[in-house]
């Protein structure tokens, strides 16, 4: 479902190159969940950005359902992301000027779904993530854990083929984080969604089917 082939990326600090990946390759099957472990600065977030088409690699390819993501032009990559990818961020990144229900309905509405139907689906998903009755509240009135639940609901609202989660528990306490990972993996499996989760916590990694360690631009499978 997801194939990363010989991916390389480096950043420049003045005249000095900083290699993030050098010939990185791995793949994920449909419905598989995988954790990508790595220390801070190991390039975990950069990898997610390359997979989703937000960032571009220096060389190599990312195939999503056999579509070469980086062979597409930027607007096409955006539409691919809209349709096939769900994102969960460390800092939730909910839209502060939209209510929780509207945040969840937004991906559906962007895909052309009728506003009422989108709101209805959002309501159902919010029930599933344990936020029933909070649809009409603004994100800032929710706790960190609740905001991340809402973010998960938004990421899965349009039933994406691929769910990318960037340190989803990084901003939460251990107990809340544990529940969030449970919810995330549970829902992904329930929907048959392929999930790539980046984290620096080995404990989080245990909840997924596979674990990949990222170190000095290369990967090692556990």
């Amino acid at each position, binding site marked *: 479902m997801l194939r990363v082939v010989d991916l390389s990326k480096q950043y420049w600090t003045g005249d000095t190159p900083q290699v993030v990946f050098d010939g990185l390759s791995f793949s994920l099957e449909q419905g598989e969940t995988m954790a990508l472990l790595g220390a801070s600065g190991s390039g975990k977030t950069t990898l997610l950005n390359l997979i989703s088409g937000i960032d571009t690699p220096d060389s190599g390819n990312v195939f999503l359902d056999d579509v070469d993501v980086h062979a597409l032009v*930027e607007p096409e990559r955006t539409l691919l992301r809209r349709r096939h990818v769900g994102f969960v961020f460390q800092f939730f990144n909910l839209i502060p000027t939209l209510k929780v229900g509207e945040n969840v309905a937004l991906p559906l509405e962007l895909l052309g779904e009728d506003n009422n139907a989108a709101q209805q689906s959002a309501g159902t998903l919010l029930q599933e993530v344990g936020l029933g009755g909070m649809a009409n509240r603004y994100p800032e009135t929710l706790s960190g854990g609740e905001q991340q639940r809402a973010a998960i609901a938004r990421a899965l609202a349009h039933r994406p083929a691929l769910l990318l989660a960037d340190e989803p528990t990084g901003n939460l306490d251990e107990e809340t984080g544990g529940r969030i990972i449970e919810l995330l993996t549970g829902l992904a499996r329930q929907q048959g969604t392929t999930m790539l989760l980046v984290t620096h916590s080995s404990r989080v990694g245990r909840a997924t089917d596979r674990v990949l360690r990222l170190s000095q631009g290369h990967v090692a499978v556990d």
Partner: protein
Amino acid sequence: MIAVNFFSPLLLRAGLRYMLRHRWQGLLAVSGIALGVAVVLAVDLANSGARAAFELSAQQLQGKTTHRLVAPGSSLPDDIYVDLLRQSGAPPMAPVVNGWVEVEGGSGRYQLVGFDLFAEAPFRSQLTGVANRAGFTSDWLTQPGALVLGAAAAAALGVDTGDTLNIVYRGKTENLHVLHIEARQSRAADDLMLVDIATAKSVLSLHDQISYVDLILDAPAEQWVKLRLPASAQLQTVADQAQGVTRLSAAFELNLTAMSLLALLVGMFLIFNAMMFSMVQRRNLFGRLRAIGVTPRELFRLILLEALILAVAGTALGLLLGIWLGQGLTRLVAATVSELYYNVSVTALQLDWTSLITAAVLGVVATLLATMVPAWHAARTPPLTTLSRAALEQSARRGVPLWALFGLLLLLAGLLLALVVPGGVILSFAGLFLLVLGAAMMTPMLIRAVHRLLTRAALPGIWRMGVRDLDRHLSRLGIAVAALMVALSASVGVGVMVDSMRGSVNNWLGDLLSADLYVAAEGFDEGAHLPAAVVAEVARLGTVATLSRYRDRILPLADRRVELIGASLATQSRRGYAMLSSTSSTWQEFDTGSVLVSEPLAYHLGLKPGTHLKLPTPKGPLEVRVAGIFRDYASEHGRIILDEAVYLQHWPDQPVKTLALFARNGDIKSMRREVSELAARYTVVITPAAAILEESMAVFDRTFRVTDVLRIVSLIVAFIGVLSALMALQLERGKEYAVLRALGLTRGQIAGLISGESLLLGFLAACVAIPTGVLMAWVLIESVQRRAFGWTMPFSVDSALLLQTLFVGLLAAGLAAIYPAWRSALRDPAPQLRED
């Protein structure tokens, strides 16, 4: 491929809620649009109001008239009318006598119009409508001095039916009594006084003469009249005549319109500023939206739609504000137009739909245009960059040299358009706008240069922060400084131009008014003249060493109303003429029939010494040679001076209008006493040169009062720009200040930091505004004034004005900092420190 919705309601809702959450920012953007629109509308309303008042007044007097028989620059002998009327097949004709009079104890001027009641019926309803009232016709014809007045004029003068009014014309007073007050007259007719033609002739001292004859002509009738027309009379269509007069003030209107567009340009900077802030503040939001699949096009549409909402709100407010501002401005413009061009009486603002629609369209289009760049910026940035806090500043910093280069090219193109490329005044203004825009684009480069300079200076910690912020927030501060710079430079440009012109006019008048005493006819209309006895007696006075005589009339020449002066010039008077182009034999040529031409006329007709000019005279065209070109600011339409002897050969009946007297042995006192004794027997005005100079300069200052108002409005717009920039910046840096407070900075230090930064902005804006403004003044003088009015003037820059600009820049920035500084200093840092 996936179909993209034209617009997501949720996206729109997110945008609208953002605006509601940041009311201050929205309000300031709306104020910027509103003020820009208001100034454009107010000036347009004032211009069109003055023009419409004149046209309405003219139309009311025209009635069904299609043509007018006139003697250019003079009145028409009765005989011409009578001769035409007596011939068989004569078309409908109505003689009219009119002139401007004053009312004793009243203010303002009134147009006294004398009609022949029996000839009026096919033409106008003013009199014939009233004439149906019982007893009116007999009273009108039998009561000498009977007058019909509009209700508004009667109210202004405090008179009622049966009351007497003392009408003053050229110092002579005549009593008229109010026979009827007409309530149905329009605003434009406030200054009309209707009398019988015989009464008008008596008041205006027009014996055996009328002002003009109105005619209703079809094509054959026009031919009929043309065949029988004497050489001294001219047949004009009424449309041509009105157009000729309204064209007089076209350049004045253009100047005002340019000033108002400059205010709109400042307003556009403000909108650009506000939208750019809004983009910067929401970069995280846009990043999130882009990450979840919102396309650049959708973001672009969202931002433009937001701008449209702001534009509609701002424009609506601007229209209301413009109407209010227009009321004050209309009075100012009407007063100036009356003083300089033609008499208009505007008592109330007339709402003109074209002006309203133009201002509304301009407001919306300008807002959308100003939003294009920020919208494009936000939409085109890849999601990662949008998410990065520093990315925008980095990109802004990278773009600075490119913007500066583009700005320099625009500035040079502007100078080229205004000063090198041949063309009209519109091209000059286009050049002026490019120049200002170019300088604005170069402003961020200057900020960077100053930043580098100040960074090297060892400033204390807190001030070092302020200086570094210049560079850190360049994308936002650059625009705010540019907006203030544009307003300040407009103020400098117009100020230097007005100062230069004032100095030139002062010098010119000082040289020209070389005589010790001037004797002129009392009255203010074209035909005012001195009694022949006065001219003869003054010449015989022992205290008068020598004198110059001036006779003048208006001549239509190449669509202009040129003043033709027949002069007998004393040597001292000749010295007063500043010759811009002459030969060693200019005055000898003048004495033998060549003419001196004023600079504006020479510029427009391409005249120089040695070229020839054809003057229309009652005896047919007179070809004269140009002996010299003299500096002249008296009339943008031009003046021609011809030796009195030659003049009298063609216009033998033209009386003397003014005498310039030179005292024997410098004894002005004795000469003044003798002339005053003589003047007591006649209605003449005796004025020393100094008094004329003083009055002329007072008129000059009144003329530019409108410009002053517009300069102030532009500065208010720029002030809002700086306020908006600082407010938005404070909003964004809330957490930074909270950290500083947590580290131990006092509230006073926070307020000081913000105020210091703001003052630095004001200082920078003034530093760029001064050279830009001087350059603008140069274009205004060398190109705009030259092409619009035809005159040149020495360029003079008053250092006090430049210092004043620096002060105004600092003041605007200092005032704009008060609220943001107070707000930031008082803010509780705790909640902001808790935010992620």
